[in-house]
């Protein structure tokens, strides 16, 4: 498809601006001015609407396709939450308004949304307090590790490293490293959970904490989690809960009760806010009492007269982790979703997320290898190792699915399993949709026996076939206006 720049026609306009109604024509000295205007496209409004509508049609999406992308919780995003976020009383609100003297009076509704969202998340995760500032899961992780560091610093602890299981998301070690810690990796045992004996070997007093996803990326809940918490606490380490997979345990157990001290929650996963093609997300962070003094400012408080206020006066706070109060437009959607579901609805969510994943596990395990052949939680982890021996790899099966208008599962992650195919159906998919998916997966398996070479030219039905990623990485053309660049 043409780029928007290639549709440009000199002097065409997409948006009318008013004629100035002020009797002033200001000008600046030329040394402050750009020489030529930015080369933005010159197109009509219809050109723009048609271009981006057509572009959108090149995407798979939850609205149009089954999207069982493991560890991403691609559930249905209720439409009404968009209307909530778009109410002018919220969408037009300037973030600096409450920082004016007495300004909190003018944003009471917004502050109540923040306060109540924090309260709900505290009850769901079993934590003492939450901050809504972090703007994505990885941002929440960094915030959590900074809280850990602040805690150890305040206690005079000399800590050097953070322990992370080998099945963890890559963001965990990246976040911990950016906060200044070394990483110690612990392997999984044959059940797919962190090897507790190996953990004991590396757990020294220099351990700042342990970052865990539970259930982990193998789809398994570690039933010895309380034991692990005690071990880590014994060296005054902090237990960090990566909430990527919280959808599996809603109402079943709470990280706080299991001994976790810090939790981040991905609102765009568990709480159904849109993924937007890769954000904006939101990654609120909850803490136990011993980490509460270090939470970022500002914090929303309820005053004795029932009004809400922003409090910046926490001397031990790590400071600002974002400019304002979090991704408000995302938080408000998650809050609306929580209100709609209520406690019972949230518990039903985990029930059906786990039921659906186990249904797919049972239906597919004859054809696909299950590295951990046991009950799973909200996602099931397969390996395409059998098909790979026939020359059909996980990526080939992914492309086969694309031709059938199904978004592929997560492939080649976690790194602990070769040819990984990680499937997370979520609670919002019906048995009929999943049966359709199973049929296609079984067909792929049959075809891998009969005609493995046919996969290499897939997908065939999409606007493009497989892209040359090597060319992209070697030539690095990332800007329409400049040629290929060797960096």
């Amino acid at each position, binding site marked *: 498809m043409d780029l928007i720049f290639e549709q440009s026609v000199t002097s065409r306009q997409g948006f009318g601006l008013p004629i100035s109604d002020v009797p002033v024509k200001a000008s600046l000295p030329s040394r402050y001015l750009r020489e030529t205007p930015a080369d933005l496209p010159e197109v009509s409004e219809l050109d723009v609407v048609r271009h981006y509508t057509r572009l959108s049609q090149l995407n798979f999406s939850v609205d149009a396709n089954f999207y069982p992308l493991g560890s991403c919780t691609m559930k249905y995003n209720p439409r009404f939450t968009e209307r909530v976020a778009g109410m002018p009383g919220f969408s037009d609100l300037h973030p600096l308004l409450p920082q004016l003297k007495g300004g909190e009076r003018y944003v009471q509704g917004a502050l109540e949304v923040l306060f109540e969202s924090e309260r709900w998340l505290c009850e769901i995760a079993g934590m003492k307090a939450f901050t809504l500032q972090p703007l994505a899961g990885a941002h929440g992780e960094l915030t959590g590790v900074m809280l850990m560091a602040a805690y150890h610093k305040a206690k005079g602890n000399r800590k050097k490293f953070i322990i992370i299981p080998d099945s963890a998301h890559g963001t965990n070690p*990246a976040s911990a490293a950016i906060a200044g810690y070394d990483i110690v990796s612990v392997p999984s045992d044959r059940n797919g959970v962190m090897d507790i004996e190996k953990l004991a070997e590396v757990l020294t007093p220099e351990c700042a904490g342990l970052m865990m996803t539970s259930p982990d990326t193998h789809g398994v809940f570690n039933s010895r989690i309380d034991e692990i918490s005690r071990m880590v606490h014994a060296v005054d380490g902090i237990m960090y809960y990566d909430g990527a997979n919280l959808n599996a345990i809603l109402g079943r157990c709470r990280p706080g009760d299991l001994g976790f001290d810090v939790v981040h929650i991905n609102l765009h996963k568990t709480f159904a806010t849109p993924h937007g093609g890769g954000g904006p997300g939101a990654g609120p962070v909850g803490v136990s009492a011993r980490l509460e003094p270090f939470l970022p400012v500002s914090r929303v408080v309820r005053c004795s007269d029932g009004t809400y206020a922003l409090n910046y006066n926490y001397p031990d706070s790590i400071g600002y982790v974002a400019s304002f109060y979090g991704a408000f437009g995302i938080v408000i959607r998650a809050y609306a979703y929580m209100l709609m579901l209520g406690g019972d609805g949230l518990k039903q969510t985990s029930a059906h997320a786990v039921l659906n994943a186990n249904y797919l596990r*049972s239906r597919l395990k004859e054809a696909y290898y299950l590295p951990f052949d046991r009950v799973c939680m909200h996602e099931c982890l397969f390996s395409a190792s059998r098909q790979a021996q026939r020359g059909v790899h996980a990526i080939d099966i992914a492309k086969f699915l694309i031709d059938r208008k199904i978004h592929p599962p997560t492939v080649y992650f976690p790194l602990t399993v070769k040819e990984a195919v990680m499937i997370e159906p979520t609670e919002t998919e019906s048995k009929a949709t999943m049966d359709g998916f199973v049929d296609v997966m079984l067909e792929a398996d049959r075809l891998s026996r009969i005609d493995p070479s046919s996969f290499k030219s897939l997908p065939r039905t999409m*606007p493009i076939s497989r892209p040359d990623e090597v060319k992209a*990485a070697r030539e690095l053309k990332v800007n329409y206006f400049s040629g290929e660049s060797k960096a």
Partner: protein
Amino acid sequence: MNPYIPNTEQDVASMLATIGVSSIEDLFVDIAPRHAPVSFDLPPGLSEYEVMRRFTALAGKNSQGLVPFIGGGYYDHYVPAACPALISRGEFFTAYTPYQPECSQGTLQALFEFQSMICTLTGMDVANASLYEGGTALYEAMMMAIRITGRRRVVIDGGVSPIYRKIIKSYTHNLDFEFVESPVAHGQADVAALSRLIDQSTAAVILQNPNFFGAIDDHAAIADLAHSAGALLIESVYPISLGLLKTPGAMGADIVTGEGQSLGLPLSFGGPYLGFIAARRKYIRQLPGRIVGQTIDTEGRRCFVNTLQAREQHIRREKATSNICTNVALCAVQAAIFMSLIGKNGLVRMAQLNLDKAEFARQEIGRIPGVEVKRSAPVFNEFAVCLPKDAGDVAEAMIAHGFAAGFPLGRYYPGMERYLLVAVTEKRSREEIEAYARALKTVLES
């Protein structure tokens, strides 16, 4: 009750039979009774209608209809209707990170267009597909400069948003970096002071244009100072102003970041917003986050993919250039749509309207007895005025007159308690500006 669960009792029974268990609870065997929640005290669910009613009430508790003359980096610009309409399409809204390029060319191409627009706007060679927001983007730029130079000292101008400076300090509090702040002189960056502070151990000089006080400048001389010491120049910019202002690229900046809220995003009480980052070509490997690159498919057709992924956390883990996973793709697409609508000449005219209206407001406000409008530096659409009273009190009193009058600078700059920062966008009409000046006069006389 969860209305989004489609499976019926019959479906559930048949699925349980396939799995070979008798109840859903049997699937939660690993969560032992001792793991059960100590409490899960949440109210029952509500209908969509009930939830809407509650939010209508909550929205009503926020002030509506205040005429905004408040900016501070976040501005009340017009958002064309086509922006939210296009972005609400489920195909953009409910897709995820384009891991599978064949079924996500829409997001990928839109992000490539966004990157290209950011490059032409800033005069830089390469840009990424977005970062969370302007403040965290500046932190990422600083870390990039530290990686590139291998140095650990950073000089930040006092005209850089105090909010951004607070973010950078929080993130680096535990790390071994040296920060030096250079106070502004007469509203602009102090070249003499900077030249004393920039040394052979300096990784980067961070500036903002227009700066927090609204003043504009040409930082080419500071770029030369930085480069001669082997340091990089980082500029934080306000995209609408680049309709007119000299680009950071032309000034010699090495890395450019900014807040993209003004490019068609609502104020939305602080987010989601749009961070952007652009750089010189030679630094592309140190650029954090997702980058979309052009390539061809097996039949030679142009297409787009996430590229340079080997720098990223899902491959590099603790050695990644950044821990960033997702960006704010949807906000970036929204900004690309905005920039397409406003277009090449439209952005120039929009910037000129901002400039004209701000100048008109400066003149109107400057006529009020006792008010001093600072004219030591040229401004774009925001400017500081010195009032005869505490600016915080004045702003509070102005709310009663229906105006969000501006941002009192004393909050972040001790000693500037009588200064008010006033922003005027293209949306402010002559009547609003004149009414503002009348109200300010009344408040100051009372």
